[in-house]
């Protein structure tokens, strides 16, 4: 097997192990917590017979390892169980809500990247100007102000005072794109604000750093136009670390969606996480943790493999370490 093949195989094995470890961890955490989830669902007034009946239905009367085995067996059959508080199939629940969250977070990341880079470049190429100072202040504010507060202010301004945008709810882009744009405008904006500010700050710093490098000076000495120097040579190199930053921002945007969905009454994954954790809806918590883990591991796996493919030094290092 060539070095890339061995590298890929090892990465896949490691990913599978991580998924398995997280599944055990998620199961342990939820099941070892004190308290009775069945009582939480049926209420303090429920009969003991009804509580016992539900416990049996959920396999909670069985030994821990048996419970884990039954859960995993169910997952391989596509059965994540049933939500205790929402009384519906967990797989169906996630299947319905995940696209909602993705339709908010992906546009937010794209907008953040585009505007973040533009703002960063404007600031770096006009260092010390009024535009640079004003944008830097705005970026600092955007980084510091809580998302929750921005959301509420936007609701009052655009929803109540101006009446331009609906202040809550969600519409699928596949059903009505215009309605989707109207309803997603505010949540997407607040999800984009922070990553945009972070990317802008990073691009500005990177650009300024790169502009002072020797090869830029050399390019200028060769008589290349300032425009070509800045946008062809400086920006290109300044953007490389932004790819890594984007991956980190994706995680933050996903976290921000919990708040955004709460504020704008959107039934997405963020809201589901909130409901299930507060009510100790363990089939949903376990499933969400597993689904998120699989997504993160899969994306990381792709990145690792692509890095290995792009940069032979990485796969060679990995091979040495493993051998």
């Amino acid at each position, binding site marked *: 097997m060539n070095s890339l093949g061995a590298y890929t195989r090892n990465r896949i094995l490691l990913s599978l192990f991580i998924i398995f470890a997280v599944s055990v961890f998620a199961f342990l955490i939820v099941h070892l*917590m*004190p*308290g*009775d*989830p069945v*009582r*939480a*669902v*049926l*209420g*303090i*007034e*429920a*009969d*003991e*017979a*009804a*509580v016992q009946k*539900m416990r049996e239905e959920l396999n909670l009367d069985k030994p821990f390892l048996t419970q884990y085995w039954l859960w995993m067996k169910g997952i391989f059959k596509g059965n994540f169980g049933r939500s205790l*508080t*929402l*009384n*519906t199939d967990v797989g169906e*629940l996630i299947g*319905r*809500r995940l696209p909602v969250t993705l339709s908010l977070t992906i546009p937010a990341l794209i907008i953040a990247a585009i505007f973040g880079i533009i703002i960063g470049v404007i600031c770096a190429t006009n260092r010390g100007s*009024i535009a640079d*100072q*004003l944008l830097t*202040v705005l970026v600092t504010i955007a980084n510091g102000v809580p998302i929750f507060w921005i959301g*509420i*202010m936007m*609701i*009052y*301004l655009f*929803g*109540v*005072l101006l*009446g331009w945008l*609906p*202040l*809550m*709810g*969600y519409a699928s882009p596949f059903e009505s794109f215009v309605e989707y744009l109207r309803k997603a405008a505010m949540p997407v904006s607040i999800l984009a604000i922070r990553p945009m500010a972070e990317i802008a700050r990073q691009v500005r710093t990177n650009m300024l750093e790169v502009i002072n490098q020797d090869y830029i000076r050399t390019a200028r000495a060769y008589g290349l136009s300032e425009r070509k120097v800045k946008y062809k040579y400086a920006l290109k190199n300044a953007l490389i670390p932004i790819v890594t930053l984007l991956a980190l921002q994706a995680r933050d945007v996903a976290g921000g969606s919990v708040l955004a969905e*709460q*504020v*704008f*009454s*959107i*039934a997405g994954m963020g*809201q*589901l996480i*909130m*409901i299930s954790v*507060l*009510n*100790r809806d363990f089939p949903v918590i376990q499933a969400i943790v597993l689904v998120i883990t699989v997504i993160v591991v899969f994306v990381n796996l792709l990145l690792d493999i692509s890095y290995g493919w792009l940069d032979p030094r990485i796969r060679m290092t990995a091979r040495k370490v493993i051998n």
Partner: protein
Amino acid sequence: MKKLLVLFLILVLAFSVVACSPSEEPGKNGQTSGEPVVGGTLRIGVQSEVANVAAWRLRSPQETLIWSAIYEPLFKMGANGEVVPYLAKSIEADPENLTYTVTLREDVYFSDGSHLDADVLLWNFENFKENSQIAGRYFSDVESFEKTGDYTVVIHLSRWNSQMPFSLTENPGLMYSKKAFDEHGYDWCMENPVGTGPYKLENWVFGESKTLVKNENYWNKDATVYFDKIEFPVIPEEMTAQAALLSGDIDAFYGPSNATMAEMLEKGGFHVTSGKLRSRIIFLIFGSDVKGDSPLEDVRVRQAISYAIDSEAIAKNIDKGLTYACRQYAVPDTPFYNPEIEGYGYDPEKAKQLLKEAGYENGFVTTIYVGLDNPFEDYMVAIQGYLKEVGIGVNLVYQDVSLWSTKTMFEIDDGMVLIGHGFGANLVNQMADNFSKRAVDGSGMLKLSKLHPDDLHEEIMAAISATDEETMYKHVHAAGKMIIDKYCLGYPVVMGPFANVLMREDIVDDHWIAHYSDFFDYTGVYRVQ
């Protein structure tokens, strides 16, 4: 640059002030008078999605709010707290033979066209006993049900239970279509409500909203069903709900906090409507260690705690006057209320005196437990402060929902538990659950506590088994006096309306929140021009 920055900050500040300040729109508290509008949509915001749909599984107040438009009970509570026939024509009690005979109206139909007759009633009763998680509370004394006529069912009891007519005004009295059950099966019914009410479910976007449309086959031709549709959007965040009310995106919001209600009433253009008999009590229940070394075992200590808390100040300052201090475990102006109960007014000196007499002059430390799902932080901190004034240290323990249920029922035997619950027609059952020995045997608080006195248990059981109303209320009053004056088993912190709905002023609650019932009557709400 500095000028620009200052200008920008002023703009941000100005916008914040405008957005957060009260509206200048003219408005008034209370309902607007005018001609009712027939047609249109009523939009009521609710805080979360509901879990239970089938009539026999309903549990939360939110489920009751929504599904009351679809399900109706056999009996309702009248203006004076009496049982009034609704889907049923009558209920006849026969204490000697331990039976109740329920006779139905003959003109009631479900939204799927099926007829409510004795077979359907019998199935509903049996199904509730078999499948409801709270069957024990209502049907523990039921031996069997028997159809004795086309519209008559007899309930056979193993021992007399005076609460059956009251129980049939609650969940066991809600009727579900047997035809729907037979055609679609149990699981389908768990997700599809089919009742006799004025509306039926049209659309449900899970987690977002439910739309109910007028039931064109509604059996009650005397009632006017004003709205064509009712929508229930889910709005988890209260500030968003406030904004939605202001913008007119919703007409009403169910279950707002007292702070939100006070703020919106001050803005004007809104009013709050709420139930009367179905009130909500915030109650501090005392527990005492089985080992017998708890300060709370001494009634003087429990009384001292009661004297140390200023409920009137809590009602005024924390609840903005939307609750009131109530000195007993019953709602004023209802037959359950006993005017002879003295209770405990705020008197810290008397509290100190009682502590001294009990041998706790230097105070002691105890714990108050509260569930995290209850917004009781302000009450907890206030109580902690009041008790500190008389030398009692309090640890506040907040617990998540699952832990809270288990702890309060099975594990806590010492300290206090702060609960909030609604009660109305089911007051006797709740008394039994919390204070009688039934709390130890079945569902109820503080099973391990010693504070379940024999004579109180007997008094509550006598109320349950009373054969006439006068005797029942006599025992309820006696039990109420024991709970507060004799044993001081708990302290009623504040009492307030249970089903608060914050509404725009053009929405009128005529008899929507039936003031003496658990359920909402959607023929009693309309918009005025």
